[in-house]
């Protein structure tokens, strides 16, 4: 009854092309953002920030990046962790070597740009290799980048252990120290990035990506250049992923070693994209929430049930249940959580008078 677009007339092209054409959607999104900015800091604890909210936001951003590549452009990539590492290490090195630029916004953008450059490089084979051959080929980037950051001493500033630690984190004179500040900073970044991504995917460039995804030869024939389209998808996707990687290093971990961005990270983010929904930005958020929350819940479950188990056993059971849940979700709704959400929205439109 409440969720209905009846009576909302569009009188300008601008109004017709808004991101959320329905007033209720606009209000809802604004309310969510307002709540995230104003209400959450009122009650959030340190645990909530560092273990749930910050990972959720950062990984959502990475999932958006990967979704652009896999969901919108149809190029399956298993190298996400490597690109995140590029972003993190590029940001670290810029902050370290050019102290005047040690501003989080600048180093993050630099990390994103470097990652985009590397993404273009490793995207080149996609012009020739397709499908699962490409997916496996992107693993080359993952392993190569892992190796690079573990072995090239210059990149880690010759630290003996190979792990790097960031110093002061500040942006434009704002020292970002407490979890709440980090959270707000990341939130701002993610909101802006999401708006950018949304506008990209609904514009000309996004349509060219989708054309390539749906049938690349047909897209080529109607005039989309595969070189430019595919590489732009790789670049934009890696840019977002690189920023997410830099954030993960700077604001989530503080100090890290290459293992933080290994292949499991790639799979984790791919899971988010698939579980959330391919080709849906909302899905990236839902998938990230699912993948971040599930292991935490599974980990806490034996404690709540009052069953004493060894940590090894808990971690094995976690693997088991996690795998089973992924299969279950794929069987129930292969198009992801975003699809469930849109079904719910359709139902809501008719509710409570379905006829």
């Amino acid at each position, binding site marked *: 009854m409440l969720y209905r677009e009846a009576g909302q007339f569009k009188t300008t092209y601008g109004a017709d092309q808004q991101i959320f054409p329905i007033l209720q959607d606009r209000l809802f999104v604004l309310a969510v953002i307002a709540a995230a900015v104003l209400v959450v800091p009122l009650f959030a604890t340190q645990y909530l920030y560092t273990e749930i909210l910050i990972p959720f936001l950062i990984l959502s951003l990475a999932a958006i990046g990967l979704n652009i590549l896999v969901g919108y452009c149809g190029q399956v990539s298993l190298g996400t962790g490597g690109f995140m590492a590029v972003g993190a290490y590029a940001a670290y090195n810029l902050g370290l070597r050019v102290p005047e630029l040690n501003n989080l916004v600048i180093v993050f953008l630099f990390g994103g740009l470097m990652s985009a450059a590397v993404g273009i490089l490793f995207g080149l084979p996609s012009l020739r290799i397709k499908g699962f051959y490409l997916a496996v080929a992107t*693993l080359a980037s993952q392993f190569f980048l892992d190796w690079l950051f573990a*072995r090239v001493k210059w990149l880690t500033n010759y630290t003996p252990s*190979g792990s790097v630690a960031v110093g002061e984190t500040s942006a434009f004179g704002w020292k970002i120290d407490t979890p709440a500040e980090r959270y707000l900073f990341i939130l701002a970044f993610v909101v802006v990035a999401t708006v950018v991504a949304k506008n990209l995917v609904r514009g000309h460039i996004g349509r060219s990506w989708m054309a390539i995804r749906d049938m690349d030869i047909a897209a080529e024939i109607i005039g989309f250049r595969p070189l430019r389209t595919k590489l732009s998808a790789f670049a934009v996707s890696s840019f977002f992923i690189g920023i997410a990687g830099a954030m993960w290093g700077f604001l989530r971990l503080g100090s890290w070693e290459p293992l933080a961005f290994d292949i499991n990270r790639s799979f984790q983010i791919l899971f988010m994209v698939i579980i959330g929904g*391919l080709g849906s930005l909302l899905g990236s958020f839902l998938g990230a929430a699912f993948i971040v929350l599930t292991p935490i819940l599974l980990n806490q479950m034996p404690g709540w049930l009052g069953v004493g188990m060894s940590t090894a*056993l808990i971690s094995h059971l976690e693997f*088991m249940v*996690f795998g089973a849940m992924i*299969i279950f979700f794929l069987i129930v709704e292969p198009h992801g959580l975003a699809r469930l959400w849109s079904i719910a929205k359709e139902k809501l439109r008719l509710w409570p008078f379905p006829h």
Partner: protein
Amino acid sequence: MLGPFLETLIGGLLTGVLYSLVALGFVLIFKASGVFNFAQGAMVLFAALTLARLTGEIDGREVHLANFVIAAAILGTALAFVGWYAWREYMARGGGPAERNRMAVLAVVGAVIGGAVAWFYGKGSWPLWVALPATAAIMGVLAYAIERLVLRHLVNQEGIILFMATLGIAYFLDGFGQTLWGSDIYKIDLGLPKAPIFLFEDVFPGGLLVEPGDLVAALIAGLLVVVLAIFFQKTRIGRALRAVADDHAAAQSVGIPLNTIWLIVWTVSGFVALAAGVIWGAKLGVQFSISLIALKALPVLILGGFTSVPGAIVGGLIIGAGEKLSEVFLAPILVRQFDLAGGGIENWFAYMLALIFLLFRPQGLFGERIIERV
């Protein structure tokens, strides 16, 4: 110079044979069902763990019996849930009594095998000739469960969804195997001689060092390939498998039951996983890292082509040899030139090698030519 080179080459080729074995399992499944089965590594681990625990010493089993119960409880809940789902679907479709009987028979067979293994497991270590068929039977049940519970519900989905599902299976199997059998490092003892053999001692100073275990592995792999080749070329089922691989719809229309074929394929690749697991386990010990060899088999796959059995073998040999040679001869040069903190380039070298091959032949060395039409 030639001596060490040949020694590295032979060591690499023998390791490559093991990669081939894992890649073979991938190829079988991809050929027959188009599923990119990421769970192959997990299947290798599961098979190796099962065999190692069945043949192993008895101490420490009591601890794992508790785990057994927990795993069984969780599995039982999951199975009941899925069973209910399947039953509802079956009722909705109005399937005949034949299907019902088949479901019942298979459920009973699975329960009997599981129960027998669980019962005799507590009694003591099993001789290899009992444990090996038992593990093979378990892999068969596993293949059936995967086909029935996962793949059948995902028919006609896109490749990436199926790939994700096999990732889920991989997670599940990793967790399940270790819950069931524990996560310590176990040994599989095949009773092979351990002392290295020296070949061509009169040609090279010191001769060429070869591990006998590796030779046996190569023999087993070769035997397996021959058996598979005969199976594919000469038997009725093999012919059906090739028909399905060529064209699902056409095969189905001439009366080849797809589900049965997939079951057979998954069972066969379960056996291949068992062979790979036994050999790897005997060589390196059974531990979690075995499931990561799937990642080593992937470049073999793209190099040889996803759909080619000989490709898996040749690709494995190339990758194995290339990896070892690069590590021994290229890595020190890189380390010296760029002041690196150690070599370890074998992790990515195989992928780069495969990538370079792919740029020239996008379908792999032996893959079927990709013909694209609008």
